[in-house]
């Protein structure tokens, strides 16, 4: 007996074009069955309590704190956003200290979420967090906040992530998100650290890069004098280094997070390799006074929104309707625009608003005041003619309308020529056309009265 082995080439992974966040799909589905998924729409900040369920020490003197909401809801956010957390640094009775931390976990695993805190020398809060936050502790928080995040939809999905030190946190969320989603993407992360062994998440990053062909990670040490073995790159960020790891940086969206100084030089080098400033998204936490003030404003505004929504929900005893919540997010997007032009937001709000029915808003007159003619069990209101026409189910609409003196142009009377096409604002018809109307037009509310019968009361634009 012989044993033979055949080496089979592993075929390439086939994926759909681009990347799309799962909540996008929710926009298109009906409210009822997708009700549960609604909770995942990350469009406005909330105030909530969360309980620590796990702490994970990370390389580089960082600590990951895994949390879950006390109310059992998932946390809806966009990867790259942050939370504002009240830490009872001076004891339970004293005024807590608020700090913002990027979420490091992916919104595609929303039942728990994580922040990753670097222990800063002399940092009162970070020290306290490292020493005191333990499973079981409940913290008061507000979020998600921030315009530094992946777009909801990106059919190109080519990214360059520039991380320095603790700046890796929001980018980690982005990489985890992309890894967890289908779709073609091309992610290169260039991660700068001070010394070997200081790269948080490096084992996971290595793993992700090894199993996901979309992800590449490069490490570089800022300091050239390295002792011991080090296999990554050496040296501070330069234009040449960017060009080496991503010769196509020019066509990518760049997300960069790190200390101010690092981001300043990054901006400079990125423009040298031809990256347009509208393609650069930056976040700095360790930052200058100006940045901190910006965050403070953002958080304060998010707080107002959270309050308004909470109030609206109390009143109505039912979930906030889509549009109201959206308007609020739009306001937020407007103020966030300073940070990155708010381009990502323009999309999704545009899409959703377009999906809102607008036709009924322009009702010119009240059909109940119209004169009614004809006989039949159903009523057709012709808004422009200002007439109600009775009709029986099974009776053809065009004929009944003409009978009542309504002017609708018509030729073939067989649903072929399309000349009788009118707009239906409400109600259902049964139409048997023969190519005189396109599916797109039907979706837009048009129909051919010559080959349609009424199934319910109708409101018609004619």
């Amino acid at each position: 007996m012989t044993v033979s082995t055949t080496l089979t080439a592993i075929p390439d992974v086939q994926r759909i074009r681009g990347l799309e966040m799962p909540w996008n799909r929710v926009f298109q589905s009906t409210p009822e069955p997708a009700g549960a998924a609604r909770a995942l729409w990350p469009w406005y900040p909330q105030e909530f309590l969360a309980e620590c369920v796990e702490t994970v020490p990370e390389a580089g003197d960082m600590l990951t704190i895994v949390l879950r909401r006390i109310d059992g809801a998932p946390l809806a956010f966009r990867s790259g956003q942050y939370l504002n957390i009240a830490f009872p640094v001076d004891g339970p009775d004293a005024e807590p200290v608020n700090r913002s931390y990027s979420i490091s976990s992916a919104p595609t695993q929303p039942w728990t979420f994580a922040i990753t805190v670097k222990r800063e020398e002399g940092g009162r809060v970070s020290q306290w967090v490292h020493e005191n936050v333990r499973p079981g502790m409940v913290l008061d928080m507000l979020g998600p906040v921030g315009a530094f995040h992946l777009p909801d939809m990106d059919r190109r999905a080519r990214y360059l992530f520039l991380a320095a030190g603790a700046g890796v946190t929001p980018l980690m969320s982005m990489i985890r998100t992309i890894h967890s989603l289908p779709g073609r993407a091309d992610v290169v992360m260039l991660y700068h650290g001070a010394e070997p062994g200081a790269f948080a998440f490096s084992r996971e990053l290595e793993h992700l890069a090894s199993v996901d062909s979309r992800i590449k990670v490069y490490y570089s040490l800022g300091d050239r004098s390295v002792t011991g073995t080090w296999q990554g790159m050496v040296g501070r960020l330069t234009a040449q280094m960017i060009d080496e790891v991503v010769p196509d940086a020019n066509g990518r969206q760049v997300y960069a997070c790190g200390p101010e100084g690092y981001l300043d030089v990054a901006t400079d080098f990125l423009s040298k390799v031809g990256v347009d400033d509208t393609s650069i998204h930056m976040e700095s936490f360790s930052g200058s006074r100006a940045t901190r003030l910006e965050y403070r404003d953002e958080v304060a505004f998010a707080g107002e929104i959270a309050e308004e929504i909470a109030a609206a929900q109390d009143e109505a005893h039912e979930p906030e309707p889509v549009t109201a919540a959206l308007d609020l997010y739009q306001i937020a997007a407007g103020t966030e625009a300073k940070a990155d032009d708010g381009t990502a937001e323009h999309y999704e709000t545009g899409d959703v608003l377009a999906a809102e029915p607008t036709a009924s808003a322009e009702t010119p007159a009240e059909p109940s005041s119209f004169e009614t003619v004809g006989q039949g069990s159903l009523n057709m209101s012709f808004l422009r003619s200002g007439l109600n026409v009775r009709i029986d189910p099974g009776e053809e609409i065009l004929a009944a309308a003409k009978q009542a003196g309504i002017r609708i142009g018509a030729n073939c009377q067989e649903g072929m020529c399309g000349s009788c096409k009118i707009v239906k604002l409400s109600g259902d018809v049964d139409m048997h056309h023969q190519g005189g109307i396109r599916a797109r037009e039907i979706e837009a509310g048009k129909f051919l009265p010559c080959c349609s019968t009424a199934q319910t009361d109708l409101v018609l634009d004619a």
Partner: protein
Amino acid sequence: MAQAVKTKTSSRGKVSPARSEDQFAAVRTLFENRRAGYSLDAPFYTDPEVFAADMKGIFGQHWLFAASLAEIPEPGDYVTIDYGPYSLIILRTDEGVNALHNVCRHRGARVLTEPAGTTGNLVCGYHSWTYDAEGSLIHASSPGEINFDKACFSLKRAHSRVVAGLVFVCLAAEPPADFDEVSKIFEPYVAPHEIANAKVAFQQELIEEGNWKLVMENNRECYHCDGHPELACSLFPTWGLTEELVPPHLEDAWQRNVTAETALQERCNRYGLPYEVVEELDTRIAGIRISREPLDGAGESFSATGRRLSKKLLGDLRDFRLGRCSMHLQPNCWFHLLSDHVITFAAFPINEHQTLVRTTWLVADDAVEGVDYDLESLTYTWKQTNVQDKNFVEMCQQGAASPAYEPGPYMKSEYQVEAFINWYTQRMQEHLG
């Protein structure tokens, strides 16, 4: 993604000779007397007889550019276009694209009168004869009519095919076969820009008071490019020169061009994009020139700085610095394909002294006006350039109409004009027999 050639479902009627044998012979003599290397004699630009011959010999015989899929993005979308006396409906169907003669089979009315729109079936506005998307007559309300066979009155069809999102039509009964080869040449250059996933940002129509050949001639040289200050920001001032010809004051620009070209070719190799010049302007029936060349400045687009004009890359392109891929096809079109937008140009002859030039700017269909691109900036360079070109063409038309006009020599840098005229003359001589 070339689609199969659509065959006609009905035979086209014989074109009866519109002019006498004498006039026919006169036109033939004009071609025989054409002096190579010189511009054409005046009648080529001014004589209705020559125009009528052009419509049959060139526009009635060859593959012509009609529109791009971006102009008819969904089934039911159509555009109507005219080539001289011909009028066509270019209709997007569920399966592909149909080209139908826009001439009602009842009493000949234009079936569709709008330049563009969306329709289910096609209804003639006169007596409502109704045709389906394939052109079959499906309804003719005719009370009392018997023995009327609808099947005999389908709309006439022209050949059409889509290559890399560009729609071409051919009015001949038997289209020239070498378009197959030519589409294989240009498809790899054009396809990565994914015109089928682009949208029309703007369309400009200019009626130029000039013969269609003057429009094409003007397009085929850059001898006059000093007259295009806006475009000059994007084209290297050494465009069309060879190393030996570079004057001292342009040496810097020459170096800049060489460097940009090397970088562009490296990029193209990395991304698998072809860039070599293919030039067969008069050596085949479907004459073509195509290449990808760097642009000056940042090298991304037709802006004063060379920076991108739309923030969304077309298709799956990876880099904004792809210069311009330029394509010339005989007889009626030219194209510039950039990483962020595509511009298509088509010449539609109206009569011997007027030509409609339609310019269409395409951007990625997910690009949002005002967010990803500013319409004014996007269209600025070519709007200016087109108006300047219109002016040049009209200057020549006026000249050709003067008794003092006589053909002048094409210069070395105008070899593509000569190639166009040579192509035209050959095709017409074949046609006139």
